[in-house]
């Protein structure tokens, strides 16, 4: 089978070069060349926000989805966006995938979910020093995703929603005071020139899913489907995201090594204040999952124990 894989990152992105490409090659090798994939990067087949629908509708056979682009649509998986949960993307992705498998079929019923993974944790990068939750009050912050947007509002700040390319502009001219980003993105987007202050804590992650069109999946020959199944595993969720995770994590080292950058490590007491301040978000998540008919308590504790098992749970 010849499959189309669509994503919305540039073709030279680490996720393509160290994630998708080796994955595709492994699939091709394992199937003796019977299952091949063509990558359509950079929103070539549709807008980033639409990649779930694109898999559902068969516009591509397999797509890279950020469920957080459509707040409210996939309540369970947004547990991955909650603050202070995941400490690293490698074990985190493996845990996240093994946890979400139990709910994927119901929550993303229109597609065949191949795997789920998370981005390396991001934090707050600001123009002026920020240390405690109270520092957010009255500040304008560009959030990475909708849950972060709610968090900023919750702490008395305002979320400034601008497209990523405009983010630097908005901060440079003072219309935003801070941005939430994974570590190396600060450098990739050139924000490091203006945000010299960083808080060293695993504030949030962004969640991703590789979604397959159902008909494309079911239409595969048995041996082909087995190859795909063997590549849609928690182990692969870790492998596919590892290169990107390492790259983002390297941004933290970079900031630590630069004299004009301040990386602030909150005290245990301050960390508790941060976690306490984020509690309403978790409550809201419970509410939304319950409203969608899920046993939110069980789902949440399953998520925590999965993370703990991979040593990726924030203490």
């Amino acid at each position: 089978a010849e499959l189309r894989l669509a994503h919305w990152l540039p073709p030279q992105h680490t996720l393509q070069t160290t994630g998708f490409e080796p994955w595709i090659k492994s699939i091709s090798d394992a199937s003796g060349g019977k299952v091949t994939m063509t990558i359509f990067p950079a929103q070539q087949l549709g807008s980033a926000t639409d990649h779930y629908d694109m898999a559902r509708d068969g516009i591509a056979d397999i797509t890279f989805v950020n469920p957080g682009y459509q707040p409210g649509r996939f309540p369970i998986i947004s547990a991955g966006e909650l603050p202070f949960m995941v400490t690293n993307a490698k074990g985190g992705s493996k845990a996240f995938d093994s946890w979400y498998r139990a709910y994927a079929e119901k929550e993303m019923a229109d597609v065949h979910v191949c795997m789920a993974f998370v981005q390396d944790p991001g934090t707050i990068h600001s123009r002026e020093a920020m240390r405690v939750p109270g520092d957010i009050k009255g500040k304008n912050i560009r959030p990475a995703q909708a849950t972060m947007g709610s968090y900023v509002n919750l702490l008395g700040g305002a979320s400034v929603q601008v497209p990523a390319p405009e983010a630097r502009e908005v901060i440079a001219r003072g219309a935003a005071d801070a941005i939430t980003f994974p570590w190396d993105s600060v450098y990739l987007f050139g924000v490091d020139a203006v945000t010299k202050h960083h808080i060293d804590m695993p504030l949030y992650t962004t969640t991703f899913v590789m979604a397959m069109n159902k008909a494309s999946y079911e239409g595969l020959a048995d041996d082909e489907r087995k190859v795909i199944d063997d590549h849609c595993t928690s182990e692969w969720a870790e492998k596919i995201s590892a290169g990107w995770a390492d790259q983002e994590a390297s941004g933290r080292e970079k900031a630590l090594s630069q004299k004009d950058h301040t990386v602030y490590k909150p005290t245990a007491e301050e960390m508790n204040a941060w976690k306490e301040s984020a509690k309403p978000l978790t409550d809201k998540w419970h509410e939304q999952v319950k409203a969608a008919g899920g046993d939110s308590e069980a789902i949440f504790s399953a998520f925590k124990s999965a993370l703990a098992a991979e040593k990726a749970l924030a203490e």
Partner: protein
Amino acid sequence: MNQLTRGVEVMAGLCLAIVTVVIFASAIGRYLFAYPIPDSFDIARLLLGITVMWGFAVLGFSGRHITVDLLAEAVRPAFRRAIDVFAQAVLLLFSVLLAWKIFSRLASAYASHEATFDLRLPVWPFIGIIWIGALMAVAMAMLRFGMLAAGRQASPISPSENIHD
């Protein structure tokens, strides 16, 4: 009929004014009061969608789409009229397909609880108004098709009205 086309025009024009004011006010809010209007981003872009779809209905009747007129200008009037009827039929077909598919998008947005970023307003009512705009586009394109097919010019067409770039 005149009232219907005028109504669609006014609706789309007012929406354009509101989008402009929302974006302007949001920028002012950010600079003067250091406080952006919540959801101005999502609301502006959804209103813009309404503006464009209702505007598409306006163009379906006025015939002011951008076209290549090389052949039409070179042929006899009777043939030119045939060309215009054909072109309008194609526009009508497209409008019907669009209205049909936007309805399925509306159904999906309703079922999936998609919401705006800040206030978590449901998105489907906005898409619903866009879909009504698409229905209007079908009606307008059909009106003009009827007039062209009956040999009446639906509205004057001259290049000066195709001012766009």
